């Protein structure tokens, strides 16, 4: 196998690890709420599969960690340990560490530190205590060298001139040998391949081959093997049948003994049938099947097979995405040219263009769906953030998730990770109160953070809600006034006060971290979300909690833009980032901006900055502003 193929399988292994980690997290969450035997099986299999694949690539640290985790899970599976709350928490920690190991292995980095203590705590759950630290994993990881499979010719022949040893082998199969798909003929052939084999078959005197059942063993064999082989070489031939036959192997290095063997067969009562042509009489290959084989039906309640999927290199999807982008542009330009040429009135042309537009947009949507991924893995990462943040603060917090299957563009998901982590950590840190404070406020000791995702009007809405203390508006206002962000006598609504949290001058101010609301780094969060073309808003009810809402575009790949010609220059603004064009005189609505060839004194505002201020000629086609690439 080529190195490329090997690298591809390795990359695929790490992808599979991510999927396995996802199912591991799901199953652990289920186990936390009770679960059943299958839940434990899923957990076990996930860790087991990671270990198995890691072994194939010689990832020793990952194998070693997964092996110790798996050993404890095996005890869980066999009922030797109970899934108590404490045990499940340790499993979660181990799962997180396993994930770290997977990522370290993928990056070729050193194994993460600090795993030992958690593993020891985990192993302490075992009834017999932890295994010896020096106990090796049950197999040694081994790197694969696929070149070795076929490349090399046979080893050079031995040039030894001494007489090769002679071995005497007795082989008497048990009935089970025949019912496990093993075949004495193949064993005999393999022995014959080791050197010069003289094979004697012992058959009972009354043997009738025609009536004999293949599964009732009546034959046994004595083999005299002359060849430059060791006992281990011979044992290797038998290694699948050692428990299915009586086998004895001993050296006969006196050549004269060969005659003695022939003269004195060990089974005095049986005929000795010499088989010079080996066991060619044994029928080996059944006739090929020409009809489908009837099979027992699978369990009727078995789960339906998973939906068929194809794994595609992301580069290919991106290339398709780019081409679709060009297609969308091309379609828009064509529509514009047709309109300019006065052909838009032609019914057939207009209808054809209309259909072209619909198809183009459908293709665009379909390709975007390929890039779309569910938010679930992202939410699962937040579960870990919450576990770690709350454990450090002595709080107990549970995570509820809604709409995990909601799909967003892969890039958006990737870039959402940091801001979301920040918001979730803030919620634990500043939103959720200490257990005694919660009890005093008449709330359950355990706080709740709810992460939800949903599609809303062509965008994705992600909300992070906590049932904590809420925003202390009096303090926020006082601090904002103190920092000169708000005039002392300003009339501010609750919502306006809440949104002061995002103001750069406010959130970077020292000392705010002690505020029992929010505020640290919120401007950073807002910048990150804005950079994604999103919006973030906050709402809060004192004493009852805080809710942050992120509204995000479904994709970043293709944007609609408004093209504006200003003083001989052509400008294009992404239409969802630019605010509406506005003007001082005469006042203009968004609708009038779309009217073709209207002239006005206007400013184009994009990303909160004024882009152009001039006499502007806004040119728009019948479908609105001309689509273009950003």
């Amino acid at each position: 196998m080529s190195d490329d193929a090997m690298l591809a399988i390795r990359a695929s292994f790490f992808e599979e690890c991510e999927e396995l980690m996802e199912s591991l997290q799901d199953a652990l969450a289920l186990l936390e709420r009770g679960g059943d035997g299958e839940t434990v099986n899923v957990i076990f299999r996930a860790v087991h599969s990671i270990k198995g694949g890691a072994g194939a690539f010689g990832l020793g640290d990952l194998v070693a960690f997964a092996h110790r985790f798996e050993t404890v899970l095996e005890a869980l599976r066999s009922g030797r340990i109970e899934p108590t709350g404490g045990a499940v928490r340790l499993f979660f920690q181990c799962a997180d560490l396993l994930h770290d190991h997977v990522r370290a292995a993928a990056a070729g980095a050193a194994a993460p530190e600090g795993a030992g203590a958690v593993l020891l705590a985990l192993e302490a759950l075992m009834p017999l205590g932890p295994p010896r630290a020096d106990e090796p994993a049950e197999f040694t990881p081994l790197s694969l060298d696929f070149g070795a499979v076929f490349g090399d010719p046979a080893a050079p022949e031995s040039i030894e001139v001494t007489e090769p040893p002679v071995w005497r082998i007795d082989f008497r199969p048990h009935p089970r040998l025949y019912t496990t798909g093993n075949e004495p003929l193949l064993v005999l052939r393999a022995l014959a391949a080791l050197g010069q084999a003289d094979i004697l078959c012992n058959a009972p005197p009354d043997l009738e081959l025609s009536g004999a059942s293949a599964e009732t063993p009546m034959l046994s064999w004595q083999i005299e093997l002359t060849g430059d082989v060791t006992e281990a070489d011979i044992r290797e031939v038998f290694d699948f049948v050692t428990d299915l036959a009586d086998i004895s192997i001993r050296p006969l290095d006196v050549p004269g003994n060969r005659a003695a063997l022939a003269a004195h067969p060990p089974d005095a009562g049986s005929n000795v049938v010499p088989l010079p042509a080996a066991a060619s009489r044994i029928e080996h290959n059944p006739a090929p099947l020409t009809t489908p084989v009837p099979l027992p039906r699978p369990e009727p309640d078995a789960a339906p097979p998973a939906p068929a999927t194809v794994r595609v290199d992301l580069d290919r999807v991106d290339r398709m995405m780019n081409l679709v982008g060009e297609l969308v542009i091309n379609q828009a330009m064509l529509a514009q040219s047709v309109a300019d040429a006065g052909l838009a009135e032609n019914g057939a042309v207009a209808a054809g263009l209309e259909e072209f537009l619909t198809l183009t947009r459908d293709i665009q949507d379909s390709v975007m769906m390929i890039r779309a991924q569910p938010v679930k893995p992202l939410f699962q990462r937040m579960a870990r953030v919450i576990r770690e943040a709350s454990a450090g603060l002595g709080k107990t917090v549970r995570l509820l998730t809604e709409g995990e299957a909601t799909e967003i563009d892969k890039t958006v998901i990737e870039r959402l990770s940091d801001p979301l982590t920040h918001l979730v950590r803030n919620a634990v840190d500043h939103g959720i109160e200490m257990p005694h404070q919660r009890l005093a406020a008449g709330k359950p000791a355990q706080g709740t953070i709810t992460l939800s995702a949903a599609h809303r009007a062509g965008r994705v809405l992600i909300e992070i809600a906590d049932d904590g203390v809420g925003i202390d508006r009096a303090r926020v206002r006082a601090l904002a006034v103190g920092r000169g962000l708000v005039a002392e006598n300003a009339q501010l609504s609750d919502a306006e006060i809440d949104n002061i949290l995002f103001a750069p001058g406010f959130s970077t101010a020292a000392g705010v971290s002690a505020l029992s609301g929010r505020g640290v780094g919120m401007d950073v969060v807002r910048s990150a979300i804005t950079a994604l073309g999103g919006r973030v808003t906050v709402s809060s009810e004192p004493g009852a909690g805080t809710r942050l809402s992120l509204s995000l575009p479904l994709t970043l790949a293709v944007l609609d833009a408004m093209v504006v010609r200003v003083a001989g220059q052509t400008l294009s603004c992404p239409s969802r980032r630019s605010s509406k064009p506005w003007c001082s005189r005469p006042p203009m609505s968004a609708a009038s901006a779309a009217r073709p060839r209207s002239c006005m004194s206007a400013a184009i505002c994009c990303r909160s900055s004024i882009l152009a201020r001039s006499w502007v000629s806004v040119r728009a086609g019948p479908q609105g502003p001309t689509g273009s690439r950003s």
Partner: protein
Amino acid sequence: MGLRILAVDDSRTIRDLLAATLSAAGMDVTLAEDGVEGLEMLRRMGRPDAILSDINMPRLDGFGFIHAVREIDPMRAVPILVLTTESAPELKTRAREAGATGWIVKPFDPERLVHSIRKVTG
């Protein structure tokens, strides 16, 4: 014609490795993700020259799968090698009771894997 092999394993990585290794050895590989799919593949493909099967699998595990294969008359003598990271004796015993021909301990060495298959197929 190369040997026709059915390989059943729930790990995509292991399936990929098996497919690559066995194809490189000139074998004709059919893959299945678990015992249920393995049985379905057998129904479609008829008798293979050998079967490789994992033990820990969802829906129908290796023990159940091997047992079911041995219940199918034309499959009673098909060599079945168990692919497993377990080397615990009781697992071998259980696999044997179900009708396993032999075993290959993962991570498998490609050369040994091919050798083991040739050993049970002749």
